[in-house]
């Protein structure tokens, strides 16, 4: 188990390193940083001074090493717009995104698993078919459009829910959270639902497929032959088997959910790091873009690692293999 963990950690480290190269190349080479960083009004001498100041006259590999060194010390440059360390800026916006993404992922399980269970148990019923048709919509509708429709119906037409912002927040561990206040929850309802729509469809389909696959198994028939109640057969014997792939996928989806929060945050003006990155791209605030990308990559790799460990703990069969 330990050697396996160490090996996974080293692997993860290499991926992070590879991503720093890609991000560096992506941002420093494709777009010309000189054009971005220096105002067009600056004269020749001014230009040369700034270029030297930023180290842009150095060879590429040196620039990369400087960048890497900074990254290791938690220094990814200062935002041009906010004149604050980029990393600090991102970190400040992170809780808003995290609570939105985690809520969305939890919602996908709370809504997706029961629906999928039902659709799996009654695949030919009207409701079962409707659920499946709905999941196709959840997969194919663009998130931003669904968000707009939510606003149009629940904020503009019905006036039930607020359409923008985080609402009132309360502090916990020195961080402001929306989920701690009623007003915050009301603000979070639509964005979270919007963000979770894709995941709901995914979890729903996964659960349904799992039910269809598990039900004809001998061990289910044997459980019924023991005289167990249908509830016990479904909620213990079937569900426990399905939860392994569902938890794995949901865990892995947390990363993409955080990434896709970019869209939802823009629609609902949710002040998270997704909205920040879009704003930063629009004004070409390069250090913030780099900081965001590095942060996301790190997040992804951490999540993948955690899911791997969780998966190993959940499935007794895998657990044994890694021991042996």
């Amino acid at each position, binding site marked *: 188990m330990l050697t396996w963990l160490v090996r996974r950690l080293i692997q993860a480290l290499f991926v992070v390193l590879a991503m720093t190269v890609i991000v560096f190349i992506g941002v420093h080479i494709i777009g010309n940083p000189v054009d971005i960083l220096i105002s067009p009004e600056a004269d020749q001498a001014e230009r040369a001074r700034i270029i030297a100041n930023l180290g842009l006259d150095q060879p590429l590999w040196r620039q990369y090493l400087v960048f890497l060194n900074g990254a290791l010390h938690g220094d990814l440059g200062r935002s041009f717009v906010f004149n604050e360390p980029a990393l600090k800026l991102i970190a400040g916006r992170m809780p808003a995104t995290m609570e939105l993404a985690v809520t969305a992922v939890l919602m996908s399980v709370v809504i997706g698993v029961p629906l999928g269970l039902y659709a799996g148990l009654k695949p030919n019923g009207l409701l079962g078919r409707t659920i499946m048709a709905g999941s196709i919509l959840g997969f194919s509708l*663009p998130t*931003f459009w669904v968000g707009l429709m939510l606003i149009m119906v629940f904020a*503009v037409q019905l006036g039930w829910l607020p359409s923008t912002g985080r609402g009132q927040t309360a502090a916990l561990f020195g961080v402001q959270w929306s989920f701690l206040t009623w007003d915050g929850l009301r603000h979070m309802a639509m964005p979270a639902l919007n963000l979770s729509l894709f995941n709901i469809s995914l979890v729903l389909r996964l659960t349904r497929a799992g039910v269809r696959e598990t039900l004809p198994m001998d061990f289910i028939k044997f459980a019924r032959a023991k005289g167990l109640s249908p509830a016990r057969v479904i909620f213990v014997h079937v569900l426990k088997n399905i939860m392994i792939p569902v938890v794995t996928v949901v865990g892995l989806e947390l990363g993409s959910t955080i990434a896709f929060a970019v*869209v939802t945050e*823009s629609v609902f003006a949710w002040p998270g790091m997704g909205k920040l990155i879009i704003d930063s*791209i629009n004004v070409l605030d390069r250090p913030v873009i780099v900081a965001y990308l590095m942060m996301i990559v790190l997040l992804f790799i951490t999540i993948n690692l955690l899911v791997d460990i969780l998966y190993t703990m959940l499935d007794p069969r895998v657990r044994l293999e890694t021991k042996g």
Partner: protein
Amino acid sequence: MSAAITPPAPATPHPREETPFRRFVSEFAESKLALLGLGVFVLIALAAIFAPWITPQNPYDLAQLDIMDGRLPPGSVSGAGYTYLLGTDDQGRDMFSGMLYGLRISLLVGVGSALFAAVVGTTLGLLAAFFGRRIDTVIMRLVDLQLSFPSILVALMILAGLGKGVMNVVLALVIVEWAYYARTVRATAMVERRREYIEAAQCLALPWRRIMFHHLLPNCLPPLIVIATQQVARAIALEATLSFLGLGVPITEPSLGLLIANGYQYMLSGKYWISFYPGIALLVTIISINLVGDQLRDVLNPRLTR
């Protein structure tokens, strides 16, 4: 000489002759929903292609616009006596005309990027399957890396570097999509490669390019078609999303996504039509493609043979 050997054409062709293509068509037609999807998509595509001849107004010809007609609700009559079926946007553009022109951009970007990505991904997938070993490892590692990051993130990264523009969006979408094709084609080609006919072709010492594209490729077509259909829908949705975020196509060539974004600010004040109708057009397009794609998957997937 050959004319003498050719048997005379039968007077009445057998109408029920079972060719693979005919079987495919009849199996596809089993789903009424898929036929509906196909019909709707063809209609949409025609409307987009012939937009300049259908629309009452060229929305980008400033001479035809009247700023006084800005943000009129659907059904309003213009100063020139023309009825704005779906209302107007803040520039006084007819939404119906704007929508069809936007549809053109959306379809162009969606289909174009899917085609490019198909070419790139298929070639790399075939190379990986055909040569194996190191080439396979390198290509598949790239595919894994690409697929482990969400499409929106990759596209954001590229557009952050390149800036707005129709071609930039297409490029970003190609980079996002190629891996799906490569993975699918490689998986199919790996199976086909071990079949006797490939071995026979190799025994004949045919050049590898010929084996790859004339022998291997045609057999990879069914899954390729399925993936391509799905990817067109995905590309259209992603392009709309990027344009909505202001990172996609420029304001001079607005796609449906950008039209929706333009109307967004007016939606809160109840002027829903500026965003709503382009949204519906986007929706119908994506759903119709997906309906076709789902049925194609069921018909072309050999594992699901009923």
